[in-house]
């Protein structure tokens, strides 16, 4: 056992134990670690966004734009819209902050409307292609592939699974008779999918636990070879 002299690793180890202490029950040590984590994360976010967005994008570009106006005149300044147009982003960002003042908070909706409108417009086509059309395309498969038994079975499962899964989400007709049977089969496919997802989730959470144990016993306590 070789305890590390690194103070940072000691802090990490003690904070890890603090978070784990919640498994026994809520306690002040856990509360402290949780609050520290949230505070540090928020602080890190704020500083990073301030320097990489507010300063690096808006301030610098607007500064260049204004400089063009001053040194090269109005026409050249107007032509340099790629720089000074960042001011509009700044104004929209400022309007968002008006939510802090209830009387004029409604103005922040303009910024939100701009963000929601442009984002949905921009994402519509790309999402439609990659998450819609390309996926639909791959379910249009041959029901029988000559000489390839496994592909045939795989194709049948995909086609039947997709059709029955969609049937389950069709609520305009009562789930009875043949239609109800297909919907029930759809539930089975969905459950198997959720089961696979759950299995991967367990694996993932265990990996994180293993990572922390490795940190505590290896990096911190030096008990591993």
């Amino acid at each position, binding site marked *: 056992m070789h305890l590390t002299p690194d103070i940072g690793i000691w802090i990490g180890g003690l904070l890890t134990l603090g978070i784990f202490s919640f*498994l*026994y029950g809520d306690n002040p040590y856990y509360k402290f670690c949780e609050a520290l984590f949230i505070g540090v*994360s928020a602080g*890190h*976010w704020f500083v*990073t*966004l301030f320097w*990489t*967005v507010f300063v690096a994008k808006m301030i610098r570009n607007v500064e260049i734009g204004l400089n063009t106006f001053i040194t090269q005149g109005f026409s050249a300044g107007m032509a340099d819209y790629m720089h000074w147009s960042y001011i509009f982003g700044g104004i929209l960002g400022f309007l968002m902050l008006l939510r802090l003042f209830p009387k004029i908070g409604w103005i922040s909706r303009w910024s939100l409307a701009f963000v929601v409108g442009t984002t949905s417009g921009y*994402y519509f086509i*790309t*999402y439609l*292609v*990659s*998450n819609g059309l*390309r*996926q639909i*395309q*791959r379910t249009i498969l041959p029901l029988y592939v000559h000489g390839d038994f496994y592909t045939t079975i795989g194709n049948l499962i*995909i086609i039947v699974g997709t059709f029955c899964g969609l049937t389950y989400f069709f609520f305009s007709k009562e789930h009875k008779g043949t239609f109800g049977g297909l919907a029930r089969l759809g539930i089975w496919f969905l459950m198997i*999918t959720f089961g*696979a*997802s759950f299995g*991967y*989730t*367990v*694996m*993932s*959470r*265990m*990996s*994180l*636990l*293993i*990572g*922390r*144990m*490795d940190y505590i*016993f*290896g990096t911190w306590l030096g*008990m*591993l070879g």
Partner: protein
Amino acid sequence: MNFYERLMNLDRRWVYLVVGIAVIIPVLNPFRVPVYVTQEVKAIYDCVESLEPGDILFLAIDYDPQAMAEVHPMAKAIMRQCFAKDVKLIISALSQNGPGMAEQLISELSKEFGKKSGIDYCYLGYKPYFSIVILGMGQNFRIPFPTDYYGVPLDSLPMMRGVQNYDDVKVVIDISSGNITDYWIIYGNGRYNVKLAVGVTGVMTANYYPYLASGQIFGLMGGLKGASEYEVLSKQGDRAIKMMSIQTTAHIVIILFIVAGNIGYFMSRKKKIK
């Protein structure tokens, strides 16, 4: 209260304790379990292996430190494989808490393989709003990243001369713990048609199999298991392989708990019906 009812009312802290012990014992007494390689991981390995010295691979390190245990071995193994084959790397870190961690990995491996920044690899670092960054890089890497992580202009880096956008890289591999992967698929592959493979956390893995089936990604590494498979193939590192024994022990304990919970549920329900 009979045995089954007691089983149903078991304090969850006992479960935590047993799972904790099941993890700690193999951590302190490691053993090996066989790792079977899947086709989706082998596809990534084969692709990297087929690259010639001087080819460029884009490695997107898009995870935060909390996902290190799962996906860090993937990034490490791929980077080692590339450096060993003299494949050049362009590396980005689009997750907000990831750049420092990525830098640590790059400096560790570049020292080990004697690789130099700007000649053998180019670390672009972090820029916010990953979807816009991914789109921007499709036009020119210099739009979102006029300089590399260390502040050196891209044009002054020897390996970046003549390298404009995704057309100049052979393949993009995204190692991720969040929805950045979605944007690599939507914009990277969907819009710019990049040859894309992904390595993701276990939680995310099942969601990306449809993209594998549709050919939008050509390879998929899922969680620690995917990482261990890659380590087996590339023979670069064994951290994930070692962890698989712990993973296996923990899974056996959880399966036993699930079985016990179900027995308790059905038996106590049977008693109630009677």
